[in-house]
């Protein structure tokens, strides 16, 4: 029997490893991407995510929040930077920072953040997928898949933190993929990003 990591696709082969998957300790993590044991699915099992609540009502934010606008503009700054337009990049960043300064602070604890990530994983990603499939929008499908995988690893890191506390980072650093946002804990950045496949130098270490 084999088990597949739902984030990076690593295959755990019970026969080759000599240890049944179920017998692995609960704090065992994916050797490639660091995902928790719970992120593995038995091979062949069709992934059946929770069906999004039916209702038909499309939730349309008439106005985007200041922080969403900040992200739109920092993204456009990146678009200018990639085209080698540093002045436009700086102007977009100025507008992005303006919207960030308007964004209200959140009062929360780690559990609240964990719940938000989990509820997104149970709903909105599926809704985005349905809309993107219907519109045959490959770009949107790709972006939502990367974001979903990154959310899974974020959820995984948060539940490991809840379980292990300070031990989570013992002798380890935290790395973030500068392209897709994949979060990795380890002694060095992974050779390639398990989600978007960029090389190690595209990772930033959190200091």
């Amino acid at each position, binding site marked *: 029997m084999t088990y597949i990591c739902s984030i990076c696709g690593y295959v755990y082969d019970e026969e080759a490893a000599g240890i049944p998957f179920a017998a692995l300790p609960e704090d065992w993590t994916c050797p490639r991407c660091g995902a928790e044991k719970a992120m593995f699915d038995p091979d062949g099992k069709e992934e059946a995510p929770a069906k999004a609540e039916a209702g038909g009502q499309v939730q349309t934010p008439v106005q985007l929040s200041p922080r969403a606008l900040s992200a739109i503009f920092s*993204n456009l700054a990146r678009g200018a930077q990639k085209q080698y337009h540093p002045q436009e990049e700086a102007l977009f960043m100025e507008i992005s920072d*303006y919207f960030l300064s308007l964004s209200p602070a959140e009062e929360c604890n780690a559990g609240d953040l964990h719940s938000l990530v989990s509820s997104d994983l149970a709903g909105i990603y599926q809704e985005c997928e349905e809309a993107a499939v219907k519109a045959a*929008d490959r770009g949107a499908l790709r972006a939502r898949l990367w974001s979903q995988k990154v959310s899974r690893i*974020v959820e995984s890191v948060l539940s490991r933190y809840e379980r292990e506390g300070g031990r989570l980072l013992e002798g380890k650093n935290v790395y973030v993929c*500068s392209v897709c946002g994949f979060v990795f804990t380890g002694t060095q950045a992974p050779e390639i990003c398990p989600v978007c496949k960029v090389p190690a130098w595209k990772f930033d270490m959190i200091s």
Partner: protein
Amino acid sequence: MEMKAVRNLRLCTKDCLCLYVCPTGASDTEDSVIDAQKCTGCGACAGACPSGAISMMPVRLPLQQEKDAEVISRMNVLLESLVRREAMADKLSSDADPVLAKVAQAIRRSSRLSAEDIAREAGYMLPQSARAIGLLKELVDNPPTKDFPKASALALIRALEEM
């Protein structure tokens, strides 16, 4: 299509073959940025570069792909949730527990990157697209507060309309 050569300095290994093949000396600059005024778009440098550091970019990009209204609407809901995660992580990044603070810092960055990618696929891919320029114009006409950097937005609109 009119093209110009651009160099990615991160990939450039200074083999300098571009200098040998460029008919106008456009690639021979102090700061390694290819001189767009001199570049004729012949592509010889990109072909000769052994490290793949030079690529040819169209001077004018094609129009941005149309986006379906429902995709935009759903992706915007996701965008709002991602930036809310960023805000939560921002708060937690100054937590008394250094391990949580560090994890939160990583999640703050991760959430922003994911939000940017979703924003891109929700219709704000190209800075010079009609949609991005339209958003800037809307903000200039209806600034959210009096501190909105209107002059910068107007300068940006002018520059983007030239691209």
